[in-house]
Each structure stands twice: as structure tokens, then as C-alpha cells.
């Protein structure tokens, strides 16, 4: 068996807050990434995702735990670690006093590319990300989405083996989201680039990831492939119903049914119903709606979406059995 590209063992980070109290941002997490996989790290705001990335990318010292990249401890060999890493940070950290082109070329030069190679690749990436026209413009004049595109281009300039994307598509329009994924998947396929992704858009991990970790309050609540995670929710198939207005009697009636394990009210109109059985569920559910004075607008049966898995796992934190793909 080959060595994993990234190994994280019992990683912890405790911050001192301004009032002197302590805040455990990352609480004893362990996981690993194989070369060439796409790993999604999902969690609500403040879960500790960026903190985890900062520690792995040598920007932040862990309180305890070990991180190894290609078998080498990043604490003893941070330079080797950084050589393999590319980062799209959550915030804009572009060089404001340089042009778009210079941002890319300097970055390439820091990573040992020759000027010629760096300029050539910079031009290619600027074209791909629709920035050729702004090649000689200073980054301080860029719109949010343009800056985001340039950050992505910069992170892949030196063809990293391990790419960290901290909410990379925030602020990007759908066309550039596709272009980003096009690039990332191409790097992933052609150069076995391993991707560590955090995002709040569930369709991205659903489409692209090999493994997903659901992370909350510094702890990994669940980790596995999406089919594996599906087994953590009460039912693999879920009934999604939309009514004009969810009423208390409707919920009560649904709750009394022996074939229904759990009901998740998503908003005032939408319900996710987790059944006990996979047999003829719709046929059993439909009459309940018909008996109630509500207008059923839509009903369908489908596999649990990552969204539902995420909501379920984060709302039932203690019951969850944490899976690790060891």
C-alpha cells in the first residue's frame, strides 16, 4: 500500500481569546488523504475549517498533533511541505501593488520556475480565467470575482501536488465555477493533484469528491464516501414534500406513522421524510397528505442529498458514529 500524501493525527488547536478564556477550534482530529483524491471538508461557519488548513499549510502552529506530507513531518520539514502545496485562501491576499500578470509570475518565481516558464503559464492561466484583458491592471482595481479567479490561477501556477481550496467558488458566477472545476479536475486527472476542499455549496462535493468529512465544533462527525455517509441518515431514500404550509397537525399525523423514522422540516413549506422501509413509500405517504387540509405542491422520492446528510449529522452530533477511512 502506498503512503498517504497527507496524514493528520490527533490535531488540536486552542486559541486564547481576548478575554483570556480558551477556545478549542480544532479538537483532536485525524484523517488522511491518498494521492489523487478529492476530499471535501464540510462544516458550518466557525467550525474550524480554515484553522485546519492553516495548520496543514504551515501558517499556524498546532497546539498538539502531527501532520505529515508525503511521509515527512511538516514541523521538521516545512519547506518540503510548502513545495507541494497550493492554497486558495478564504480572504483576498493578492499582491495589490502588482498587476495580475506580475502576481502570477512572481508566485511562479518564488516556486523556482524560470521567468520564461512562469510568464508563459501566467498568460495561459490569465486566458483561461478570462483575465487576459486585465493582464496589466493592478489587482487593487479588481472586482471580487476577478480577484477570486486570480487567486485560483495563482494557486495552481506551480502545479501543486496538494491543492487547498478554502471556499474557492464563493463570489464566482456559475460559468467561472465550471471553469474552476474544469481546471481542478484536469490537474487532478493529469497530475494526480490531491484536492482539499471546503465549501458551503453541497453540489460541489456531491459531484466531485471521493471522500467527505462533516466537521462541526472542531470535531469530525462523519467521514466517508457519499454512499457511506448516506447510511448514517435514517433512510437511504427520502421523501421530499412541498406543501403550501406545513401545519402542526400534519407533522403530528406523520410522526404517528410506524413506517416513518424521522421528519426534518427544512422550512415552512418543505419536509424531508426519512422512512423505515424502502417498499412502496410514496403509496403510504400520499394518503396522509390527502387527509390533511394542506395543498401538496410537489412530492418525490430520492436518495439522501449531501445537504440532508449534512443537516442530519450536524443536528444529531452525539448519536453519530464517526467513520474513518483507514
Amino acid at each position, binding site marked *: 500500500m502506498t503512503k498517504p500524501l497527507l496524514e493528520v493525527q490527533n490535531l488540536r488547536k486552542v486559541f486564547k481569546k481576548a478575554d483570556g478564556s480558551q477556545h478549542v477550534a480544532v479538537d483532536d482530529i485525524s484523517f488522511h488523504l491518498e494521492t489523487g483524491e478529492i476530499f471535501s471538508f464540510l462544516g458550518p461557519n466557525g467550525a474550524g475549517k480554515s484553522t485546519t488548513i*492553516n495548520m496543514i*499549510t*504551515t*501558517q*499556524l*502552529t498546532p497546539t498538539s498533533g502531527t501532520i505529515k506530507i508525503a511521509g515527512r513531518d511538516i514541523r521538521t520539514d*516545512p*519547506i*518540503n511541505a*510548502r*513545495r507541494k*502545496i497550493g*492554497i486558495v*485562501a478564504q*480572504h483576498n*491576499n*493578492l*499582491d*495589490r*501593488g*502588482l498587476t495580475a500578470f*506580475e502576481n502570477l509570475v*512572481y*508566485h511562479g*518565481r*518564488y*516556486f*523556482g520556475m524560470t521567468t520564461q516558464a512562469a510568464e508563459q503559464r501566467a498568460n495561459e492561466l490569465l486566458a483561461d480565467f478570462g483575465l487576459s484583458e486585465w493582464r496589466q491592471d493592478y489587482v487593487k482595481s479588481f472586482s471580487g470575482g476577478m480577484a477570486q479567479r486570480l487567486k485560483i490561477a*495563482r494557486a495552481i501556477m506551480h502545479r501543486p501536488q496538494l491543492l487547498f481550496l478554502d471556499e474557492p467558488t464563493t463570489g464566482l458566477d456559475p460559468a467561472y465555477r465550471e471553469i474552476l472545476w474544469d481546471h481542478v479536475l484536469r490537474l487532478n486527472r493529469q497530475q494526480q493533484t490531491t484536492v482539499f476542499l471546503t465549501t458551503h455549496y453541497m453540489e460541489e462535493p456531491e459531484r466531485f469528491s471521493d471522500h467527505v468529512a462533516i466537521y462541526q465544533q472542531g470535531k469530525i462527525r462523519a467521514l466517508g464516501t457519499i454512499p457511506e455517509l448516506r447510511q448514517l441518515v435514517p433512510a437511504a431514500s427520502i421523501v421530499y414534500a412541498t406543501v403550501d404550509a406545513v401545519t402542526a397537525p400534519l407533522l403530528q399525523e406523520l410522526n404517528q406513522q410506524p413506517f416513518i423514522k424521522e421528519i426534518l422540516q427544512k422550512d415552512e413549506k418543505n419536509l424531508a421524510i426519512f422512512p423505515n422501509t424502502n417498499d412502496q413509500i410514496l403509496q403510504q405517504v400520499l394518503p396522509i397528505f390527502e387527509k390533511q387540509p394542506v395543498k401538496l405542491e410537489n412530492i418525490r422520492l430520492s436518495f439522501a442529498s449531501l445537504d440532508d446528510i449534512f443537516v442530519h449529522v450536524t443536528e444529531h452530533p452525539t448519536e453519530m458514529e464517526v467513520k474513518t477511512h483507514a
Partner: protein
Amino acid sequence: MHNQTTLNVFWIMVKRDLLIQWRNWAEFIFRVVMLPFILILTYGYVLPKIGVLPASFPNDLFPGMVGMSLLITGIHGTAVPLSMDFNNSREIEDRLQAPVPVMVTAWAKMFVGMIESWIGALLVLPISLIFMGQSLRLHLTTGNIFLLFLILLLSSFASAALGLLVGTIVKPNQIAAMFPGFLMPVIFTGAIFFSWSALVKLPFYQVLVLVNPLVYINEALRHTMLGASNAMPLTYSLLGILAFTILMGVMGMRRFRKMAVR
């Protein structure tokens, strides 16, 4: 091979800083020239001309102006961009992510600070020649010029080291307070307008000002440029500069490392 890439990256980072400074050259010149200009105009021209200060005063002032301009420019050139980089724009993150020791970024910043401090010292020359050219009586021999070069080199290093320390401590919103709170005391206790030995009448003050690195720089410059017999002995002033450089350098490096890898 490995050291070769590290050195390359150092020069690329230096180039980046110089490029950005070059793009703001007018602002740079203005910032560097204004302080010595107004001081030289007042203390080197107006006050001696109207008799408030003796006619020999400009000659004593000149080394102090060189030392001051060098130190202030170097501190400013290193500290301000560093403080902004770390706290506001976080631009520095890209350089800290380069596959070289994080200290290379600090060395590059200091190197650029040193270059700026030299420019700061050089710009004093034309201003001095214009306003107090007739009063200058410099004693420069070949040996002295070599010594002078050494002092300027060491002093510029001291100023960049101090800039590194200041830049990693001061937050951008505190930069405005730096002028009255830090630079002004450094200037006015820095043996610019008086020779350190003249403070013998104020023994307490004479000891107090020894915490100011500018005292040693100016005394060393005064000694070398004017052959001044009343300046602090050269060994002391050189040791003072050296000690400050090492102290500030070590503390600055430590702070930088803390900021770079939080």
C-alpha cells in the same frame, strides 16, 4: 542547489519590494526628503543666519542629519510595509508560502530597508550643500571613507533590524502614533543637535539617551566625518551600533517568526 534556489527567491522578493517602491517613487522621495529638509532649513540655515545659533552649528549638525535620515528612512521602509502586510492586506502570505525558510522574506524586507536607508542618507547631501554648503568643514581621508562606509553599512543594518521589530509589533492603526511617540523622541535625543559629550552637564540625561541607537550612529559619524575630538570614542560608538543591531535583529527575527507562523 538548495541554497541556490533560496538565494534566487531572496532576490526575487527584493525585486518585488523595489518594484512596488519604485512605483511610488514620488511619495518615497517626498517622505524621505521632507524631514531633513525642514530641520536643515531651520537649524542649519535660518537659526545660524539670524544669530540664534553659532555659525559653526551647521557643521556639527551635518553628521547628525545623515545619521537621522538613514535611521528613520530604514525604520520606516521596513516597518510600515511589514505592518500593513501582516495586518491589513496579508499580501505577505504568498511569499511566506514559498518553499524557502520564512526568514528569507524577513531578510529581503530588511535588505530593501537598508537600500532605502542609504538613499535617505544620500539625499541629505544635496540639501546640506544647498543650505549650509559654506559652513561644512569635513575631514575625509581615504582611510576615513572606508570607515565611513562601514559605519553607514552597520547603521543601515541596525535601522532595518529596528524596522523589523517595530513592523512586527506596531499595528497599522498605530502607525500614526509612531511619529510623535517613537520617531520624535529618537530624533531629539539622538545627538543630532548636540554632541553626546556636551551632555556632561546633565549626567542623568547623558545616561538616558544611551538607549537610543541614533546616539551611537551620530557619534560615530561625527567622529569620522569631522575628526571631532569631542565625539564619543569610536570603539564605544561602534560597539553601541553593533550591540543594538544584534539585539534588535534577534528580537525582530523572533517577532517575525511568530507573525509568520502564528
